[in-house]
């Protein structure tokens, strides 16, 4: 095979897939409601600097990603014995690039987010939500996973 053909194939491969290490998705901080009183709903705003959940995304400047969050409907009592509803609304999440002057963009965490990495190669996604424990909710620690899946283009 001529060298130019090999070069063309190699270039195509580079275009086809992000390089290993070029993309990154990681959970940074749990969405933490802290102490909740049974019978009293509690809300965490996505802008809460301590309690909101946080994911970190890295790709390439100008690249695009489609982001989907897999959200729980209930939190489960550690050790069993109960569940507690958790819900998310439009505006309970926002994405913020790391470039100076980046502006947060709110979105519905229950839907898809199409994001373009503008001015920087990485961004953070912040997540809030609300829990509505019933008055009879058993005391204890409750937890459930939140998964962010990003497809990079």
């Amino acid at each position, binding site marked *: 095979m001529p060298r130019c053909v090999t070069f063309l194939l190699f270039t195509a491969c580079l275009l086809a897939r992000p390089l290993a290490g070029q993309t990154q998705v990681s959970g940074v901080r749990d969405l933490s409601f802290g102490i909740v009183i049974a019978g009293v709903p509690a809300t965490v705003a996505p802008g809460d600097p301590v309690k909101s959940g946080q994911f970190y995304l890295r790709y390439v400047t100008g690249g695009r990603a489609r982001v989907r969050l897999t959200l729980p409907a209930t939190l489960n009592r550690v050790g069993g014995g109960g569940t507690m509803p958790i819900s998310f609304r439009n505006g309970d999440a926002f994405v913020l690039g790391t470039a100076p002057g980046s502006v947060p963009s709110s979105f519905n965490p229950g839907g898809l987010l199409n994001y373009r990495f503008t001015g920087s190669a990485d961004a953070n996604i912040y997540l809030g939500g609300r829990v509505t424990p019933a008055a009879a909710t058993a005391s*204890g620690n409750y937890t459930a996973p939140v998964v962010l899946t990003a497809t990079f283009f």
Partner: protein
Amino acid sequence: MIAPHAIYIDHRTRSTSITLYNPGATSVEIAIASIFAYPVTDSVGQLTLFTPDSLDASMPSAAGWIEAFPKRMLIAPLQRQTVRLLARPPQGLPDGEYWARLVVSAKGGAAPAGEADSDGISIGFNIEIRSILPLTYRKGALKTGLGVSDITSTTAGDSLMVSAKLTRQGTAAYIGTAKGTLLGPDGKAAASFEEPIAVYYEVEPTFALGTAALPAGPYRLRLEFLSERPDISPELLLRAPPLRDSVEVRLP
């Protein structure tokens, strides 16, 4: 609202917090103090607080060295306040469990007045509500257990009253749940009860099972004592093996 209603402090951290929430429409003035008391049972088997007139060295009191921050506060309607509880135990405190009762006093706004006009007599009360909650301070490895004896049952009206002497074992109070099931001749549950229990030294509680619709005859009463409570996080409770016992009873 006060949460939690059972407060635990570990010697390693020497602090915890409680959350107060005002669900009402007016501000509430709060004051926090601590006393030494522990539950005993009265002559009819109901739990009641025993508050010694004076403390001696043998009493595991933490009341003197638990401090609340803030001690006084005003909570606006629908607002919450976190109160930090700090323990300052004496130097050389031996391993063990130490007890206190947190007294959370709440006063509402101005005294309500009756409807009399200015020429009449009107009456108003200033209401203060004191919630008295168990506080437990633990140092070192502790164990708890329960001894059950003297199970008796008597019928009273449309209830079967069950009594048992419960004696704490180990080095810490037994906090758990008592469950009782009355089994009919067919082995099916005919009545039951489930009550939280707190055994600091020894108590002799009475439990009631409704027997109004049950036919006369022999039954088996099954009792179970578990070191778990739905209202207290499992990691805060000291575990002990479940205890089960059963006795024959006859309903008239």
